[in-house]
């Protein structure tokens, strides 16, 4: 039931326009405003799905945008402002996942895949050392000529006859 409600809430939030920052929220100082803008793009809207608060028109997202601007206007660094939010909503609000023991696989998994693959490829190519027999023997050449001389269909048909 809860689940249905929350999902509905998400869908409803989306069916409206994706309206984001409104003029009355913005900071006067363009430098601070730009920082706030960048930061709010890294903060996930907790009531919508997969949207940053910068893109969301949910009421709570608006509150969080205003809080970010307040923190920044009060002299917080980006990290401090972000910590303010994560201390309340957890790492869920960070669209940029934190580097922790449990996110190591996430951050270094792709690199691991690349390295393992590189090792695998190296072993594969090494294991198949260059041409052992460069040229075909006379017997083989004759057999080849026979195979190539016949029509594809015919050669197969002949063999079938022999087998049957």
């Amino acid at each position, binding site marked *: *039931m*809860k*689940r249905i*409600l*929350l*999902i509905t*809430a*998400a869908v409803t939030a989306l069916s409206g326009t994706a309206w984001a920052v409104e003029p009355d929220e913005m900071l006067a100082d363009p430098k601070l405003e730009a920082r706030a803008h960048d930061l709010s793009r890294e903060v996930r809207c*907790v*009531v919508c799905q997969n949207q940053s608060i910068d893109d969301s028109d949910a*009421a*709570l997202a608006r*509150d*969080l945008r205003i*809080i970010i601007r307040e923190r920044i206007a009060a002299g917080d660094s980006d990290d401090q402002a972000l910590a303010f939010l*994560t*201390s*309340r*909503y*957890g790492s*869920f609000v960070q669209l940029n996942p934190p580097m922790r023991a449990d996110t190591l696989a996430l951050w270094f998994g792709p690199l691991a895949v690349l390295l393992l693959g590189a090792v695998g490829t190296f072993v594969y190519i090494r294991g198949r050392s260059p041409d052992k027999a460069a040229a075909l023997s006379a017997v083989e050449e004759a057999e080849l000529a026979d195979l190539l001389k016949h029509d594809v269909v015919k050669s197969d048909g002949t063999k079938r006859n022999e087998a049957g």
Partner: protein
Amino acid sequence: MKRLLFLTPVALFVVLIGVFFVSLQRDPSLLPSMLIGKPVPAFNLPPVRPGDQGFANADLGGEPMLLNIYASWCAACRIEHPMLMRLRREGVTIHGLDWKDEPEAGFGVLQNQGDPYARVGNDRSGRVGIDLGVSGAPETFVIDKAGKVRYRHVGAISIEDWDQKIRPLMERLKAEL
């Protein structure tokens, strides 16, 4: 050795399917609370009931109790309300936080549907709710004797939620020193 290499995809796949299967039984929209085991952040809110005293974090603690987030605009709160009234009759202490709401509207709910709250404060700006990590109404926090948050319930409290999760927890908390 070589055969083992060819078996790795199967092994990884089995793990993946296991995780998917377990995840299917889960509710993806639940968020863990950051406040578990911590005292409730300081707040001091104006009253909802005209002429009443307000509601501050100092009011929390002493005995296990519930802190319920509600609002007049919230449909699920209306479903939950009779449950809160029942708990109140059973002697559970419930405090209310009227979140992102006009005090008049919040009071209207209490007038029309009954008032389950011992203390109730109006959080018009929603900031106290955000300090608590609230993402929507209704939400309910279980507070222990020391005034620390021990559990957070998202959404309306159903009878099972109460019987299976919250009441046993409250009883345990009562037994704590």
